[in-house]
């Protein structure tokens, strides 16, 4: 049996055993639609969450993790002090690498200020050391004290002054993405629950008749549960597919490699939205079961 046949067999099973549940009607359509709408929003929330997550990781990596040490010393001592600073850095925990910038690199950095016609050697340019952190980073104050003691001409500039807001922004964006994912997921579950409950309440007459002709609770409940779970699943698939299509077609979704690559999924992230329909179905399953059992408990 190939997968398509398998899916078709589930859909057909529905038309056989569950004929006792009204096949269409507003309540079923409501379940279908709310599952679809919520799946659609959830895909977007997920895309937002992933995009902000990516952004946070990138900013975190590229900006937060580097700092600079400036050695301002008489020309004769500069090389020695640079050496000393590098030695201190190599024994500081939390530092991945440290390296003195070459004159060319320093010139490139200063170009905006002096233009490219200036000979660096003519300027008292301090030697710069680029420090890359690792793990949780290093202890800024500790390092500053050690440098003060061992390398008098060194000044540590950990970039945090002007970069911290960027990092904060990135993490606040990421929190925002996660928050909307949670909010929309929660609302999705609540709406599907309520739609299934309302749909079931509208079918009180059906439940009463079935009970009167001798159907057991589990027979009645499972007939409803199958139908509504299937509807939620189908709705979820429809919503997810439309949502993924929309995300794919969004301008800027294609990786531009810019500062913020835009809303979208990348690579294996496209697999994530696929969990939305099954989750909707699970929610519908428990909601319908609960509602059916509650309705049944009121009957003898």
């Amino acid at each position, binding site marked *: 049996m190939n997968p398509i046949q398998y899916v078709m067999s589930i859909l057909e099973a529905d038309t056989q055993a569950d*004929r006792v549940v*009204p096949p269409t009607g507003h309540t079923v359509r409501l379940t279908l639609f709310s599952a679809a709408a919520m799946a659609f929003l959830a895909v977007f929330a997920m895309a937002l969450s992933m995009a902000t997550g990516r952004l946070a990781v990138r900013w975190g990596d590229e900006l937060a993790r580097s700092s600079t040490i400036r050695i301002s010393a008489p020309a004769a001592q500069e090389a020695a002090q640079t050496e000393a600073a590098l030695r201190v850095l190599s024994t500081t925990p939390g530092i991945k690498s440290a390296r003195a910038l070459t004159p060319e690199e320093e010139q490139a950095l200063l170009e905006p200020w002096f233009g490219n016609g200036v000979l660096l050697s003519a300027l008292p340019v301090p030697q710069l050391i680029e420090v890359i952190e690792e793990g949780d980073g290093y202890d800024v104050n500790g390092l500053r004290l050690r440098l003060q003691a061992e390398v008098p001409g060194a000044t540590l500039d950990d970039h945090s002054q002007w970069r911290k807001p960027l990092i904060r922004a990135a993490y606040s964006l990421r929190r925002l993405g996660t928050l909307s994912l949670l909010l929309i997921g929660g609302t999705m579950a609540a709406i599907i629950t309520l739609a299934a409950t309302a749909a079931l309440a509208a079918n009180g*007459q*059906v439940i009463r008749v079935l009970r009167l002709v001798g159907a*057991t609770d*589990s*027979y009645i409940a499972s007939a409803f549960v199958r139908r509504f779970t299937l509807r939620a699943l189908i709705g979820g698939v429809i919503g997810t597919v439309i949502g993924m299509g929309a995300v794919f077609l969004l301008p800027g979704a294609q990786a531009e490699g810019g500062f913020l690559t835009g809303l979208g999924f990348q690579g294996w992230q496209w697999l994530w939205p696929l969990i939305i329909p099954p989750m909707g179905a699970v929610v519908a399953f428990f909601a319908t079961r609960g509602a059916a059992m509650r309705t049944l408990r009121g009957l003898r």
Partner: protein
Amino acid sequence: MIELDNMAYSYGGGELLSGVSLQLQPGAFHFLTGPSGSGKTTFLRLCYGDLTATAGAVRLFGNDVRDLSRDDLAIMRRRIGVVHQDCQFLDHLPLYENIALPLTVSEQGGVEEAHLRELIQWVGLAKRARALPPELSGGERQRAALARAIIMSPDVILADEPTGNVDWEMSQRLLTLLIELNRLGKTVLIATHDLALIRAAKSQVQARVLRIANRKLQFAGADL
């Protein structure tokens, strides 16, 4: 089959029925009468476990209703065919599927096509078998309800006003059907206002007439 032992019932206000004792034996044929609102429907609902007595005991096939689990009760109901006063159907299924519904939900395998067709023929619904319940006339619905009640060949048949909306000839026909089932050993209890029906039955079968009056169940005399 069904035993009531000094049973009482109240919907919350005053007692509607009290001190009711009755034994429905296999093969018995009973009528139940009483003024409108005296508790006939309530009595029947107690007999198939839809309501639970507030005092005394109701035993179905030897089991106290209070001791039955919900599933036991459902399975027991398949042995009791009920014609409800307000005939309730699944409005989205055609008539013949509604009549076969007790078989469908009992999951005992398919309906015997021939049996179903014969029954539908007998209650005069052959032409309307594919209609949906809302498209039926009042009498047609009542006949369908009777057909649904007996499709499983239950041991007991409880009918609440089964001829309230059908003409005299049809009611005779339905009565004949019930009498025939009774001859096969089924217990029959019919709640009705129709004294003419009771008289007609008495000439064909040994029927007893119960009457609810002043919250009590009495056997009516020969004055009917």
